[in-house]
């Protein structure tokens, strides 16, 4: 068996990979879903948009479910503290996510305009609200969350839902949403045709630029305006998880310590910015495939940056900094981490293979002519 310390780092990486995988994969259909009521002027255009993601959205969403399951299995304390603390935010995510599967499947079953526009609204909510909230959640994690543990390790959250919606967190939410829209627009540039595609090109250009500008803004704010957390005592990295055995202090600029200590990490924000701008240019010029790769790289960098900045923290506590969760003291046992690692090594590659195959089978432009020809079989 691998040693505990290594396993903990691997699991930090794996959870990062799952979150990035979710953003890149589900980001396509969430971006498309957010754009649905605005970009699709006619029902046929909206059907083109929906059917471009129809065979894949469900598989893509599994990245989120698996991410949730992996956090439960690898970081049970984080799963418990974060999800119960962010209760209303999670509820908002769940109640809107629920609208997506039914929206996709039910919309096409009846032709009435009111029926279809109702489901379009549902698809919009289910696609726009979750990325927004996930961004807000990251914004709050960076600032620290008011929670602590009692002596039986019961997580107790002392904040409120409205406190989550502070300006910095909201800005993070908007960055996240605009990044998802950017990604979705690039997907539409690749998979649709005609006027719809022209509009998607403009959206890609505009949203790419907005994402880049907001990303710079939020980074500067995080740099100068947000206090980070630092472990001020020794912390054992290979002993059973106990989040109450360290001393943590709040310190301005602490989130920059990792980047200062390892300048190579600056490549993450720089690459993120560069890929966003390149993606906006390519998307604007109609190079959908290349633009999608760029926005995927944006997703990778922008999700990775906060994780790297906070390392080894995963959920700092603002009310009782010593109770902050780090990847050293919120994990499952060594055995569970090891077994889950083996399981992931065995199971993830086939997933990637058949997902790629499914995309290949369903590839090609979704045009109004295609919709007309397969009217009864499509959404």
């Amino acid at each position, binding site marked *: 068996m691998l040693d505990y310390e290594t396993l903990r780092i691997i699991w930090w990486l794996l959870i990062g990979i799952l979150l990035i995988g979710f953003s890149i994969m589900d980001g396509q259909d969430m971006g498309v879903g957010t754009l649905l009521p605005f970009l699709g002027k006619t029902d046929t255009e909206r059907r083109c948009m929906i059917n471009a993601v129809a065979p894949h959205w469900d598989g893509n969403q599994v990245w989120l*479910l*698996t991410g949730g399951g992996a956090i439960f299995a690898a970081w049970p304390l984080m799963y418990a503290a974060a999800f119960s603390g962010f209760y209303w935010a999670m509820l908002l995510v769940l109640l809107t996510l629920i609208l997506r599967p039914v929206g996709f499947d039910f919309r096409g079953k009846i032709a009435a305009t009111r029926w279809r526009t109702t489901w379009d609204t549902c698809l919009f909510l289910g696609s726009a609200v979750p990325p927004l909230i996930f961004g807000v959640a990251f914004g709050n994690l960076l600032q620290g969350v008011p929670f602590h543990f009692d002596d039986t390790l019961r997580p107790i959250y002392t904040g409120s839902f409205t406190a989550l919606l502070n300006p910095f967190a909201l800005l993070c939410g908007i960055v996240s949403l605009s990044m998802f829209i950017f990604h979705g627009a690039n997907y539409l540039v690749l998979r649709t045709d005609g006027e719809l595609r022209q509009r998607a090109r403009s959206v890609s250009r505009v949203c790419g630029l907005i994402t880049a500008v907001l990303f710079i803004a939020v980074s500067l704010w995080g740099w100068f305006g947000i206090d980070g957390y630092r472990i001020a005592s020794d912390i054992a990295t290979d002993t059973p998880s106990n989040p109450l055995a360290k001393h943590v202090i709040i310190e301005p600029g602490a989130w920059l310590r990792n980047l200062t200590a390892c300048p190579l990490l600056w490549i993450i924000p720089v690459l993120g910015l560069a890929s966003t701008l390149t993606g906006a240019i390519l998307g604007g010029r109609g190079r959908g495939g290349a633009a999608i790769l760029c926005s995927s790289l944006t997703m990778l960098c922008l999700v990775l940056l906060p994780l790297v900045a906070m390392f080894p923290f995963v959920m700092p506590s603002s009310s009782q900094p010593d109770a902050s969760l780090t990847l050293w003291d919120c994990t499952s046992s060594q*055995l569970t981490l090891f077994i889950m690692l083996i399981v992931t090594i065995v199971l993830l590659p086939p997933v990637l293979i058949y997902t790629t195959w499914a995309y290949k089978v369903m590839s090609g432009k979704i045009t109004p002519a295609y919709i007309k020809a397969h009217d009864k079989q499509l959404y």
Partner: protein
Amino acid sequence: MITEQLVDLSRLQFALTAMYHYLFVPLTLGLSFLLVIMESCYVISGREIYRQMTRFWGKLFGINFAMGVATGITMEFQFGTNWAYYSHYVGDIFGAPLAIEGLMAFFLESTFIGLFFFGWNRLSRLKHLAATFLMALGSNISALWILIANSWMQYPAGSAFNDVTMRMEMTNFWEVVTSPWAQSTFMHTISAGYMTGAIFVISISAYYLLKGNHTELASRSLRIGSIFGLIVTFFTFHMGDESAYLTAQHQPSKLAAMEAMWETHPAPAPLSLFAIPDEEAQCNHAEIRMPALLGLMGTRSLSETLPGISDIIATNEVRIRNGILAVTLLDQLRQDPGNSSLRARFDAVKSDLGYGLLLNRYTSDISTATPEQIKQAARSTIPRVAPMYWSFRLMIGAGCLCLLAFILGCWYSLRGSIPCRKPVLLFIVLCLPMPWIACEIGWFVTEYGRQPWSIYEVLPVHLSVSSLSVGDLWGSLSGFVGLYTLLLIVEIWLMLRTIGHGPAPEPQTAPAPTPAQA
């Protein structure tokens, strides 16, 4: 502050969201394999009718599947939102099967359902069939892992308490995965799902036959559904018997409540066929019994006894007293982890720690619990009897009606002309809700019967909840119930509409269908 009301509302929310979810799951399990069978007939025979069948039932499958996915999303996150202490206390074991379910099953099922619906013109016949099969396989593997997780709550194998991390930790993954409880629950649950799919198909087919519509599709579907249903019903019954045997062996309190067995009978115990259980007086009124049958089924012997409720309460009272010692020693051990004599004393009573925690519901300081509180806690280890007794019998009754429907369906579709054709078909139509009733009630017996535990004999439900307010719970509960009910109404309406419209007409180029054998 954890109040009774918070616990009750959390339980209610979990029960309702799980039961809503479970309205759709069994049909997905069963219908997906029926689609595989129908499409296999198409691939082998090349006859359009089977393709038409696959598409028509597939359309209904899609409506149901969408609801299954929608209501399923909640389940993945609800442990964290509403059962935070549970998630911390057992996440080391319980989280693993949930994550594996995502990796091994959800990806498979969700990727290939896309190809099932949209790949008809892009894949060869054989490849499309493979996609359908992988989708069905994914659904069933998903059931496997979630039932391994659930079974661990009933029968916590392969794990031990760690006083440093204050939680249960995995000691043997293989024992968790292959626990006998998981095996029998899995088989019982999926075969009940197959029954649900089969009843769905034969009821709607019988409806078409009664109306004289789509007779070709209906009679073929009725035949496939009835034969499949008849076979899987025997599995369901057999594995149900196995599950009951395991319950008798490992969860005597659940069995005693299911059977309204207040006192221990001399072996072999009689089976109660009818009774009006009286919770106050702890006895049954107007009871009709079948001698020796319960003893035979529950112990598979003539000499072993099955403990009655009053004996179980007495045993559990002793365990609670041991548990108080365990809780006290744990407190000391957490102050002084290096003390080996303390550890030895704690290890001796560790297995009763859960029983000590039961007192948390009645007192904030367990070490000074009064005899009255101990009695109360001991009494609480038995779930309420009347709901258990009657729902268990209702489940069996509903299952038997399904069996009858399958027998009649086989008889009708194999013989062609039968006496009382109309009443027989009508009976099959009316059996439509039966598998859902049986499935929902079966889960009720399993989960309500596990009370007051969330992990049997390890963690009381009372401790498992998140530290939320009652207002939070009212808010989320009404949000879920409101949205789910709205969607359910739309879903049923859409189902009925699709059934009313019937299958899409044959493409003009298709070979003329041969007349039905019927």
